[in-house]
């Protein structure tokens, strides 16, 4: 039982500072140099060490121009990952098809979901110069989905499997013309499961019917992308867009605040905050179709939130966005407070504003 005196306090602070300083020097920068890796052949034994070995892309790798059997897709709403832009592709093994049973898409063994994370040098010209940071593969192996993160080199000529994760500094000019620097974190392989998790089984997040059941511009024509998949011969059992739920894009200002908020919470939170997700411990379930106020966090006290609760009593205090734990955790970048726990080191200002508006709209 001793009271901290100022000397001990100062010493601790010094120690902390010197630790910080020393770790700054040792910080691993993303340098996935391809040179020490031996050449490898596409022998079908996944995972390959190099992204190029899969042959997903034709021509220069960094152009991400898909090969014939690799199909571009886009969910209605996107999980916020530090403002990174994403391009996604699905590769279904030749001669096989994904199939829809009930409200779910089942993919055959050998299917690979390909997600590239990149930053344009200038967000006002998103098609201009860009830097690809990482490519995450979800491979449907015989015993289920497996996640493999690939880290791109500085020359943008190759990406290499890096199961232990990495961090790298990213600079860009944002949509308002402001210079931004982000300390981008590539998750380690097992961290992927922190989000891609349904009842402790690895599961994709975006390739669900409700996220894909919308029209996409394929250049020649606009078409429902699941119908497009079916035409391409990689999907069967799709009975037309009307037969299934469809999420809206939370960025679409023509939609209602409630629908946009639910779409936002679903794509950003529900992979953990659902009955089969890792955050089921909290009793806070944020799927788009949730209607139980308690499970939505309305006047619900937190459970294991620790400092994440701030000075607040309820997850969602109706009509009081600035007294709600939900927005408090969205507005924080402190590890242990910030939500989601992974994939975010910056604040998603537009997302916070949307959820604030939704909480404001709830009757007290």
């Amino acid at each position, binding site marked *: *039982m*001793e*009271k*901290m005196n100022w000397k*001990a*306090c100062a010493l*601790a*602070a010094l*120690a*902390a500072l010197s*630790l910080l300083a020393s*770790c700054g020097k*040792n*910080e*691993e920068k993303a340098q996935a140099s391809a040179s020490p890796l031996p050449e490898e052949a596409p022998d079908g034994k996944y995972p390959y060490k190099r992204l190029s070995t899969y042959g997903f892309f034709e021509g220069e790798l960094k152009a991400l121009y898909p090969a014939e059997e690799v199909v571009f897709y886009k969910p209605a709403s996107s999980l916020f990952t530090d403002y990174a832009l994403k391009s996604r592709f699905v590769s279904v093994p030749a001669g096989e098809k994904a199939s829809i049973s009930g409200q779910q898409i089942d993919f055959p063994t050998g299917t690979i979901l390909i997600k590239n994370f990149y930053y344009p040098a200038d967000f006002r010209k998103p098609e201009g110069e860009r830097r690809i940071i990482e490519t995450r593969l979800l491979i449907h192996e015989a015993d289920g989905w497996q996640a493999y993160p690939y880290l791109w080199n500085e020359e943008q000529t190759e990406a290499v499997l890096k*199961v*232990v*994760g990495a*961090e790298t500094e990213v600079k860009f000019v944002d949509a308002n013309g402001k210079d931004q620097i982000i300390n981008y*974190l590539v*998750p*380690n392989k*097992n*961290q992927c*499961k*922190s989000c891609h998790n349904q*009842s*402790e089984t690895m599961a994709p997040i975006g390739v669900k019917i409700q996220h894909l059941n919308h029209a996409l511009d394929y250049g020649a024509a606009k078409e429902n992308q699941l119908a497009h998949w079916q035409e391409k011969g990689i999907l069967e059992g799709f009975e037309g867009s009307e037969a299934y739920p469809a999420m809206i894009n939370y960025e679409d200002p023509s939609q209602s605040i409630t629908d946009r908020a639910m779409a936002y919470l679903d794509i950003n939170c529900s992979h953990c905050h659902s009955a089969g997700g*890792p955050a*089921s*411990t*909290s*009793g806070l379930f944020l799927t788009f179709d949730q209607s139980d106020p*308690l499970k939505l966090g309305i*006047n*619900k*006290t*937190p*459970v*294991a*939130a*620790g*400092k*994440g*609760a701030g*000075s*607040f*009593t*309820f*997850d969602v205090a109706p009509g009081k966005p600035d007294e709600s*734990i939900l927005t408090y955790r969205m507005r924080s970048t*402190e*590890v*242990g407070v*910030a939500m989601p*726990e*992974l*994939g*975010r*080191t910056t604040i998603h200002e537009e997302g916070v504003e949307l959820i604030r508006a939704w909480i404001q709209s709830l009757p007290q």
Partner: protein
Amino acid sequence: MVTTLFPQTQNTMRKSLQTVFVLLVSLAAFSCGSSTTEQSFDSSRLTRMSQEEVEKVVEAFILAEDSSTIEIPEGFYELSTQLILDNRKSVTIKGAGMDKTVLSFRNLKSGGEGVKIVGNHITVEDLSIEDAPGDGLKAQHSDGITFRRVNVTWTNGDKSKNGTYAIYPVQCKNVLIDECIASHSKDAGIYVGQSENIIVKNSLAFGNVAGIEIENSDNAEVFGNTARDNSGGILVFNLPGLPKSDGKGTKIYDNDILNNNHENFATPLGDGPNGNTVTMIPPGSGVVLLAAKEVEIFNNRIHNNKTTGVAIASYQVTGFPTDAPNWSPYTTDVFVHDNSYERKALSIPDLSRELGQLISVHNAYGPAKTQDIIYDGIWDTGLSKTIDSNPMRVCIQEKGMENLHFTRFYLMDGEDNIESFKDYQLFQNCKVDVTTDVSALAGL
């Protein structure tokens, strides 16, 4: 929706406080701000491991195969990513000793916990975990989990920076926590939540807000532990609105529950409680039951806890909503017997939390008297018109009961009509059978 039984109207409480405030304020100097940053050993003497050695450990967790052992040699490992063992069977993670292998998560940049385990028949032993921003060591959805000689702590001088739970199995079956040390967590040191078949034994919890907590769990035995210098020593809670809605069956015996007078640092000093129930625990609490079911507390040494040795409370005292499916806010079927109590002279109950204020001001022995056992006296009036028939089945059988400070409160007519009684006789000469069976854990 909020039940208006007791505290949330702080103003009225403040008024009634004023009458005894002058008396208390002079004594308060003795009881305020007790805090500790004590460490079990000095980890700074250990060799700092290289980046390659650290990555080897990260990789070992990722590539671990079933029925294997991950050995982590002596040294200080500074991790910037989480260690996650995912869906493995029969894996042992073994350090060179609690004071030899230290995994530090001070530089962790994302992730809810330092070490996370999912799997069956997993053992973690002989290592330390330091400074995780969230939780230290978490296991979830695991059947057969053993933590043995694991020390989880925070080394920050400013404890407001510390993480939530040190040792944290949740939604698990067959949990054994043995010879572990948990210190300085902002919530509970050893926290077992929404689990079944649990042993916590021969462990030490100190400097936490809550030492050991069993929450929404079934069939737990907590014995041979020392819970000292926390705000609350050992807690049994049931919280509403969780997938595992109500837990029952906990035995707490042969523990040393001492000097749990640490300031409650779950929220910054001076800030009141937030929605986390633990923020309401008054410093100076030995054992706290909240909405607990079937709990037996016996053969413990419950000494020098300045507010109360044992608190038996229903969830209504939090002032939070009490509507939730398959869950009851009442504490029922409690058997407290054969414990040893000591009250320190000159110690006075906590004034920083409403439960502490209630005890300070309204106990049956006069202002600022430390209590050995308090019962909030909240009962389900659907079962009985009065408490005289002991409708919540709270049985207290202590030797020398007449010399103990026992207060039963009456809180059900609002804060202007609080009453207190010494009538322990109502709760004597009865017995509650609490059944636990942890034989399934013998093989762990």
